[in-house]
Structure formats: structure tokens, C-alpha cells
């Protein structure tokens, strides 16, 4: 059997452990899709695959058990999905019949966000789609996740770049009845940024996470939603050697700044990554260049907006899974 595995993998298929069989990957930016598109997934799995579908950890579909010679058929079946779900939302893919041209950057994952979740400060799928529009198809490994709020149900702290929706809580003392529901809740469930003072509430801007819990809890609307902002965490990853959680790089940044920073991060990776490896996660590269270089390069030319704060330094910590040292 003769297969060009590189070409197949570039077309977003996995080469599976079963000889001659591949697994099709179907991107779902933001993990949100039209229910009718499930019919397409179902048809591919039943006609070309082994009748099962796997939900990937990146919220894409993996359709396993496809004989390599059926790839053209899969492409044909997948074309309407690519046309509607990718081209339809503005992704530049001139040849939907050709399948997904590349697997990179990997599918942008997201929690359900403000479309449905009470806590969501941003429309996560919408942002994921914007990222898809801007950066797909690409050639750089950058795992991106979007969470609607600081609860981070999407676990974006395990991504190269995690985006967390924030809201600026606005306080109107004339509506405040001093019930302290917001104060108690912020202390218990958020950051302890609020304190009661003279029957009113004072907010410590340095502590506040922009989670919006105070707005949710206030019975009178004394707290209301101000502008939305974004927190960016960087350098998270899983992996064999050195898994670790991402750390905060930016907070109170605007949406355009987030997009610009991602563009700069992609350029930074291409400049500094270890070219002897097929690909390398962002965190390793930052470790090598140092945070100072990273910061300087990815913030170049970016208008972060007046509220934004940038981490002065980052101590990643994390842990090393070094069997020789730790396990005896």
C-alpha cells in the first residue's frame, strides 16, 4: 500500500494505528454548531468510517476507521459543511471540495459563554469564529481556548493562549441598599475585591477579576455591566514532559488588542521556535527567549487600550515529570 502520509496529515486527517485507515478531523470553531450539521458527520461516519464519532478534547469531531481510498468521498460529503460552517462565517477557503487544507492552528475551543451561561461575559463562539476567520488556515501550532468568564470551564489555562471574558462592574451608590450580597459573594466566590464602607460598597480595582458576579448578585441593579474586556493567559500546556498551567499575561484588554497579540504571537513562534522539532509549544519558546523578549515582540504595535495591564514578569512554576529524579 502506498500512501503519502504527510499530504494526508496536512489535509487534517490522522494516520491511525489501523493499517490503511485514517481518521477525519472536522473543525468546530468555538465548539458550537448547527444541529443539522450533525447529519453530515453522521453520514461520513456511517458511509466512510466505522460508524462511530469521537468528540476530541479540542471540541472537534474525529471520524475514525476511514479507509484511505475513501478520502475523496469524505471530501465530497464534507464540502457542504465546510461551505456553510467555515466559508459561511467568513473563513477564506477557496476550495471547500478539497477538505480542510491544513490542521493548524488547531480548532479553537470554547465554553458555551454568554449565549447560554448566566456567568458568561462574552460570546465565546463568536470570538472563536473571529479567530478562525483571522488565523485559519495557518501553519503554526498555537492552541487557543476561549472562556466566557474567570470560572474557565473551557480550561484555557491548559492552552498556549487562553482568552477569558471580563466585564467592568459599574457601581451606582444611589441604587445600593447596603445588603452586602455582592461583598459576601465576591469574598466567597471571587476575589474579595469588595468591602462594605459606610453602608456602601468600595471595589479594589487591583483585586477585581472582572467576573461580573457582583452584577449577577445585586438585587437592585446598583452593579451593572460596563464594557467587556479580555484577560489573556499564556504558556499553558499538557504534554509528556512538562505540563503546566498558563499564567496571566494581559488583563482588561480590548478585543482588537487580543487579535493583534495573537497575530504577533504567531510571528514570534515562527521566529524563535526550535526548527529541528516538528512543532513546539509556546511555553517552551518563552522559556528559551525569556519573558522580556516575548513581551516586547508580541506587544509591538498593539494598542492595548487605556484599561489594559501587562504582567511585569511571569514565574511559570509548573512541575517536571522527571522519573529519574522523582520516582524510585
Amino acid at each position, binding site marked *: 500500500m502506498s500512501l503519502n502520509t504527510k499530504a494526508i496529515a496536512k489535509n487534517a486527517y490522522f494516520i491511525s494505528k489501523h493499517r490503511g485507515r485514517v481518521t477525519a478531523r472536522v473543525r468546530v470553531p468555538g465548539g458550537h454548531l448547527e444541529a443539522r450539521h450533525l447529519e453530515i458527520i453522521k453520514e461520513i461516519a456511517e458511509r466512510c468510517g466505522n460508524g462511530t464519532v469521537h468528540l476530541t478534547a479540542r471540541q472537534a469531531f474525529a471520524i475514525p476507521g476511514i479507509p484511505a481510498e475513501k478520502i475523496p468521498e469524505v471530501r465530497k460529503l464534507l464540502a457542504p459543511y465546510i461551505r456553510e460552517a467555515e466559508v459561511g462565517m467568513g473563513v477564506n477557503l477557496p476550495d471547500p471540495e478539497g477538505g480542510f487544507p491544513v490542521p493548524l492552528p488547531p480548532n479553537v475551543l470554547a465554553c458555551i459563554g454568554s449565549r447560554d451561561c448566566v456567568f458568561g461575559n462574552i460570546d465565546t463562539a463568536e470570538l472563536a469564529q473571529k479567530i478562525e476567520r483571522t488565523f485559519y488556515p495557518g501553519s503554526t501550532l498555537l492552541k487557543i481556548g476561549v472562556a466566557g468568564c474567570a470560572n474557565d470551564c473551557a480550561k484555557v489555562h491548559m492552552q498556549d493562549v487562553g482568552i477569558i*471574558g471580563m466585564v467592568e462592574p459599574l457601581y451606582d451608590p444611589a441604587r445600593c441598599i447596603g445588603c452586602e450580597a455582592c461583598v459576601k459573594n465576591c469574598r466567597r466566590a471571587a476575589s474579595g475585591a469588595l468591602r462594605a464602607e*459606610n453602608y456602601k460598597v468600595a471595589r479594589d480595582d487591583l483585586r477585581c477579576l472582572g467576573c461580573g458576579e457582583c452584577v*449577577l448578585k445585586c438585587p*437592585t441593579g446598583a452593579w451593572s*455591566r460596563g464594557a467587556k474586556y479580555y484577560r489573556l493567559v499564556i504558556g499553558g500546556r499538557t504534554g509528556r514532559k512538562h505540563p503546566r498551567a498558563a499564567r496571566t499575561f494581559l488583563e482588561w484588554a480590548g478585543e482588537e488588542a487580543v487579535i493583534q497579540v495573537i497575530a504577533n504571537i504567531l510571528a514570534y513562534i515562527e521566529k524563535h521556535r526550535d526548527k529541528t522539532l516538528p512543532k513546539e509549544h509556546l511555553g517552551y519558546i518563552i522559556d528559551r527567549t525569556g519573558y522580556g523578549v516575548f513581551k516586547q515582540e508580541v506587544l509591538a504595535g498593539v494598542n492595548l487600550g487605556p484599561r489594559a495591564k501587562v504582567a511585569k514578569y511571569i514565574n511559570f512554576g509548573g512541575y517536571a515529570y522527571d522519573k529519574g529524579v522523582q520516582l524510585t
Partner: protein
Amino acid sequence: MGYLFSADAFNSLLAELKTRYKIFAPKIYRGKGRTAGTDLVAYGEAGELAEIAFDRKTAFSPKEIIFPVNQTMFYFTKEEFQENLPPKEDKDMIIFLRACDINGIERMDAILLQNGPYRDVYYEKLRGKARFFLIACDQSWESCFCVSTGSNRTENYSVYVREENGQVFCLVKDRDFEEIFSKYGRPADVEPRFIEENKIRVRLPEEIDQRVFGHKLWEEYAARCSACGRCTVCCPTCTCFTIQDIFYRDNPDCGERRRVWASCLIDGFTDMAAGVSFRAGYGERLRFRAMHKAADFKKRFGLFMCVGCGRCDDACPEYISFSKCLNRLSEIMGEVGQR
């Protein structure tokens, strides 16, 4: 007299009214809802027809216009105090509101002006400035039950206003407004219309007595309620308040005394000096509220307190419905009576 206005004519009317009155109406505040991407419908100052949300129910009642959330009663120093009544030269107010809310304000009048020998002057002063422009309801929302409480109608208004496809029909009852309305409007036959049927029907408990006290209903509510107080804050008939003395931080020798809304559902309402709290349990608090709305107020003033606006139902994060609660009370009283 009845009048018909084009949108432009009504805007001209509002512009002139605005020179003499502060005008309050339901408005849509985009993106100001509790959750992201939702709107808040609430009272605010309005100057144009397009600003007035005739077809939306406000989350908060208009009571806050005449009974502010925070009201400074007086300022004090070590030696003396200065009362803080609204200045005489403040403009009078026009409030666009629905029949249930006008009935609600009548409940507020009862408790704040006719309850015992003293009239609440802080309320009275603002209340005296208010003129009601009755908004015609052309639909009853999911949670309304004003027909059951008899608060679907009112005669207590200066002008009746019905908006239809950008035109406005008005019936002026208050002679003070006749001249200015005749200046901008065309005479027309306008007959006030009221909602005659709601989606929800509530059997008002005829009589509630101590026997509902021990009912297991309150245990169920205790397990569901989170004591957030939204149901009372939004209610057009809740008037409970607390008093706060504020000593200014920069100079604690002076300060002010405020009257601030309070709620029987929120922690602290029944706290006593010795640290006792009479209704610590949430079920007890809901029972108190239900008894107040459905029985106690009526005993004193002869009016069913709740006006069936349904706002508490819309606001409750735990989906506790007061109309359902009232129906259950009626059932319980029936049950108890038969025994």
C-alpha cells in the same frame, strides 16, 4: 377630551411638557441587563416618543421615582441638623405607568401617608409632585395577574395614553393638561381600554389565618429561596426601609441620615440589638411576605396589597412564583377549612 397625535406632534408635546415637568417612562437600556448581551427595561427620564418602551414591562417598578432607593432625610453636625426635603422649585413629575403600578402607588400612599397619625413627609413631598400618565396595556405578559387582584383598572390618572403604530391616542382627565394637549393634538374619540384577562388566574385567599403557619409549603420554599430579595426590590407595593446614619469619613463629626430600602427577604431585616434574628429561615421570610401581601395589609387598609404585576415572578432566580404561592394558599385554606 380625547386627542390623536402623530409621532412628531407627540414629540413636540413632550418637548413643551419637559420645560415644566420631569418626564419618567419605561426605557430600554441596551446591554444593561444582568446577564451579558441582554437589555434592562427600567424607569428613566424620557424626552421623546421613541424612548418610551410602551410594549415592555419594566424590571423595577416606578416606585423608585417617588420613593428613592436612598433618600437623605437630614444632614447633621455635632450641634445642629438641616432637613433635606425636596426643594420647592424642583419641577413636578410626569410618570408614564400602567394600571397595576398606579394601584401599587395607592398601596404606598396607604402605608406611608395613612398609617397612623404621622404622614411620611419625605414621601409626601415627592408624591405630591407626581402626575400619572396611564399607559394602556395592549397585552398581558406571562406573569401578570392584575385582573385577579382587581388592579387592571384605575381612574387615578391625569392622561390616558395608548400608542398604536407610531400614533398616540390620549384621553385627558386632568384640566391642567387640557390646553397643552389641545395645542398639539387633533380631537379624537378615545375610550380607555383595560386588560380584562390574564394568562394567569389567581384565586385570592379569602381569609388567611394562623393555620397556614405550620404548613409544609414553607419548608419547600425554604429549600428553594436564596433570600436574594429581588422579589421585594422590584415590587411596586413593598415600602420597607431602614435608617442609616453616615458619618463622613473625612470628618466623622458630621454626616447624614438616610432612609434606604430594606427587604424582609434579606439577611439582617429582623436582627435585634441583642443579636436575635426573628426570621432566620428563608421559608419564614417568604411566609411573612406572603402573609403581608395577602392578609395583613388588607386587615388594616381593606385593600389586597399585591397588585398582580408579576415582577417578582419574573425576577426570582429560583423561579418561585408568587401567583402560584397565592393559589396554593387558597388551596390550603380550603383544605384546612374542610377539616
